[in-house]
Structure formats: C-alpha cells, structure tokens
C-alpha cells in the first residue's frame, strides 16, 4: 500500500469501510479515497461505449440527464471498430480497453456481436481483459409499471469468469461430447467476498448462496465452502444456502423471500434473467460488472434492437439505471439518488412512457421528462 493510502486510511479511521465502499483490493480503495478527497469541480473520467443499434440514442439520454443533474463526469467515448484489432483479437481496440483500465469506471450500451470467425466476442474480450469477475443486477419492482410481482427487491450477484462457461468442451467420440465445469477457490472467494461486502455497504440483511451441491458435490461444494467461510466474517448478515431448483420455485411464488443472491456462473445467468422477467424484462434492468482493482463497468443488458434504431423510440431506462449504479460505485450517492428518483417518478406518473412500456413517448420526450423531474 502506498504512503498516501496508508495515511488516508489512518485519517479516516473507522469510517474507512464506508468510504472505501465496494472495492476489494487496496489499490482500488486508494482510487476511491483519492476521489473522496478530490475537489468537487474536477470531473471524473468515465469510459462510455454507446454501442450499436439504439446504443447511441440511449447514451445521449444518459449524457443529457447527467448534465441536467450536474454530475461531474467527463465521458471518454469509444466505439466498436469495424476491423479486428490484432492486439486484442477483437473489434474492441486496445485504446478502448486501456481507457477503462485507466478510468476505472465505464458505462456500456448494447453491442451487437459481429458474425464471423477468428475474433473473440466483444463481451468475452471485455470480461477477460478487464478481469470482470462479478455481475451485479439489482431487480426491484418499478412502482407504476405493473407486473404479476409487486414486492421484488433483490440483487443477483453472479460469478462471471468460470464455472460452466469456462469454454472447455470437446468431442469424445462422434455423438458424445464433454463440457467441463471449473470452480476455483480463488474465484469463489472473490465473488463471495464481494457479495457480502455489497450486502453490508448497501444495508442488505440476507445473503443466499444458490447451488446444486447435492448433485455437484465437488464443484458447487467448493463454491459453498467459500461462501460459508466469508459468511463467518459477517455475523450480522443472515446467510442461507438454497438449492437452485428450490430457488427457482421460490422466486416465482414469492420473490420477497430473497435479498442478495450469490451464485456461480450458469445459475447466475439463468436466475438473473428470471428475476429480470419478474420486474418487466431486460429493457428495464441495470447491471454492473465488477473487476479487480475496483474497476466497474455498468451496462445495459438488453440487445441493440436494430429494428428501432435511429427512430427515437428506444427506452433508455436500463442504461440510465446502470449509470446510477456507476454513480453509486463512485460514491456520488446524492446525485445517484436524485436521478434514480427522477426515473422512478417519471415511470410511475405514467404520462411519458416509451412504446415497450405501453406508451407513446419518444426517447427524447421521456428523457426530457426525467430531466424535469430532477
């Protein structure tokens, strides 16, 4: 740890865990401390990937709302290139990746994966190069947008680097293939630590580890062991273990039973989408990917919707809410709350809604309504 960070920690004392917030490693903590001490007029640089299709339009919404809310963020925009960059073996350039590594925060719109071979998928590139190990998705019922479930308020935290998605498959003989699931102590501890820290810093009461360790005794068993270990360090947080099939049933019968869920990769993929379905779909769902050294890349998880691109019809809610998550990660809680309330109130009011929510407003009208609500 550098001298400056050490002194900072001593100065802050007991409040360090609150200010240093969600980052796990010491260098990540140092970044947050530096920001806490920086003057409020110095804008924070954040990488912005508007993405494809409706991406640029909704990114524009985010910029407008953030400006209206006086958020001191300087956007460092990057676009997906049309050619493969040999340094990254992907359509994302080396400069784009460096930008996120330097700025430590980013916001990403939907990226259409180009068809073809000989390059890595965009999401895979980001995940590997930025070492994004946890995918965090808050799911809560939006007042004013009715679904069959009114009382959803949970967060899914998904391990994002290994598990069933390790990419290790091979054909044994024709008609028989094997897929290898890898669970490591390192990755499981890392995501479990993040989950409990998140629960603590966000005032959540319960963490549920989702598994199928009764069948996959070694892999999910190891994951559970790691969660057990971390749980012991947080006695104030209620910890439970739920088998995944039970979890699915409980989620559709009574989602209020859950608070924070932590899961390995595949279960996380399925459960986080299931939860998105409970509250209204991917068009409203924010998410944030956490990397080592305090990196956070918030992203809208919906597709690029090429059929409505450029027509001013897109719903920017998912990207806006993801931007709010980014602000919270940066500890700009006051403005995060302001923008969040403005979005919720606009949707609740019902006067300005985009087509996917059953309304007739354009993207720009909806954005303006949110700015007015600030």
């Amino acid at each position, binding site marked *: 740890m550098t001298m400056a960070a050490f002194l900072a920690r001593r100065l802050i004392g007991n409040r360090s865990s609150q200010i240093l917030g969600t980052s796990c490693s010491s260098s990540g903590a140092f970044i947050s401390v530096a920001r806490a001490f920086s003057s409020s007029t110095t804008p924070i640089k954040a990488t912005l990937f508007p993405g494809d299709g409706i991406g640029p339009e909704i990114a524009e919404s985010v910029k407008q709302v953030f400006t209206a809310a006086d958020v001191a963020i300087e956007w460092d925009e990057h676009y997906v290139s049309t050619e493969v960059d040999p340094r990254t073996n992907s359509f994302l350039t080396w400069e784009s990746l460096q930008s996120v590594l330097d700025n430590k925060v980013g916001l990403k719109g939907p990226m259409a994966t180009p068809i073809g071979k000989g390059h890595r998928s965009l999401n895979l590139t980001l995940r590997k190069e930025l070492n994004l190990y946890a995918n965090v998705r808050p799911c809560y019922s939006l007042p004013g947008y009715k679904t069959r479930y009114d009382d959803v308020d949970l967060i899914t935290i998904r391990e994002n680097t290994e598990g069933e998605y390790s990419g290790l498959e091979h054909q044994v003989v024709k008609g028989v293939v094997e897929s290898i699931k890898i669970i490591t102590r390192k990755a499981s501890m890392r995501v479990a630590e993040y989950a409990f820290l998140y629960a603590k810093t966000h005032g959540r009461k319960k963490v549920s580890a989702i598994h199928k360790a009764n069948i996959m005794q070694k892999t999910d068993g190891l994951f559970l062991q790691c969660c057990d270990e971390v749980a012991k360090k947080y006695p104030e947080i209620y910890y439970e273990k739920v088998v995944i*099939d*039970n979890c699915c*049933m409980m989620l559709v019968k009574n989602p209020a039973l859950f608070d924070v869920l932590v899961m390995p990769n595949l279960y996380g993929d*399925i459960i986080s*989408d299931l939860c998105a379905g409970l509250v209204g*779909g991917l068009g409203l769902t924010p998410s944030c990917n956490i990397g080592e050294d305090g990196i956070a890349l918030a992203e809208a998880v919906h597709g690029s919707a090429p059929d409505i691109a450029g027509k001013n019809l897109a719903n920017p809610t998912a990207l806006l809410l993801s931007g709010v998550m980014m602000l919270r990660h940066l500890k700009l809680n006051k403005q995060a709350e302001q923008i969040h309330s403005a979005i919720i109130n606009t949707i609740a009011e019902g006067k300005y809604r985009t087509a996917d929510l059953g309304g007739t407003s354009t993207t720009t009208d909806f954005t303006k309504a949110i700015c007015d609500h600030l």
Partner: protein
Amino acid sequence: MKLADGLFLESCREVAKKYPSITYNEIIVDNCCMQLVAKPEQFDVMVTPNLYGNLVANTAAGIAGGTGVMPGGNVGADHAVFEQGASAGNVGKDKIVLENKANPVALLLSSAMMLRHLQFPSFADRLETAVKKVIAEGKCRTKDLGGTSTTQQVVDAVIAKLD
C-alpha cells in the same frame, strides 16, 4: 456451450423433421426462464437437457401452483416411475408428516399419468376430473393452496367427486 448443447439441438432438429405438423423452435435457457415468468402461455411442450430441465420444471411448477399440485413421471425404455413433478423442498421432514397437511393432489395426478401410461384412459380421466373439480370448487384445500383442510379431507373429497 456450443458442443454439448449444440449436440442436443442437432438431435432435436433431426427428430423435428420427422414431425412437420408440429411447430418446433429453440430458445436459450436464460431467455426461456424470463419468458416463462412473463408469459408462460407461449409454451406448450418443452424438451431440455438434464440441468436446465430441473430448473425449467421447477420454475413452471412454481408459476402453476407449486410442488403440491404438479404431477410428473420418469420414463425409461422398459419401465416408468411416476412421482411429483417438481422437487419438494420439504422432503424428509417428519414434522410436516405429523401435521397431516400435505397436498395429495400432485401424487394423485401423477397416478392418473400412470394410468394413462398403462392404457387405462377412462380411469385416468375420471381421477383427473374429480381432482380438478375439488380444486376448482375451492372448499377443500390444503395449506399450500391457501386452505385449512387435511390430507385425508382432500382425498375424501376427491373420492366423493368420482363418478
């Protein structure tokens, strides 16, 4: 999982070709779960590999009423064993047995499936109709369906409704 699930899909496609009158489509499992909770009526028959089937069956069962009402069966080349369709989180809890509140509907409907498998469709129909009438009437329901009846009371009601 391109190879593993890829092989599964290839196999489904091959068989689908032999049944041109049946609509066949494919859906990624995470999207499927999302669709299930938003609009379950779009699905009819779903065929899945092992793990996904476990999750999808439980999700669907939860949407339709829970472990207490969903029937199921396990079919093999030579034998078939019928049991509740979705995993019961309360398996092996003696305390619940003593309370006599378990819902017999799931197992009754599973036994109707067994009767159908044994080619006794009229018996199967009679049993299913009786069970459905009892549930629809709403007077005799166990705790998981929001009522206060005991297991025996539900069984007696079903027997009474058999014609």
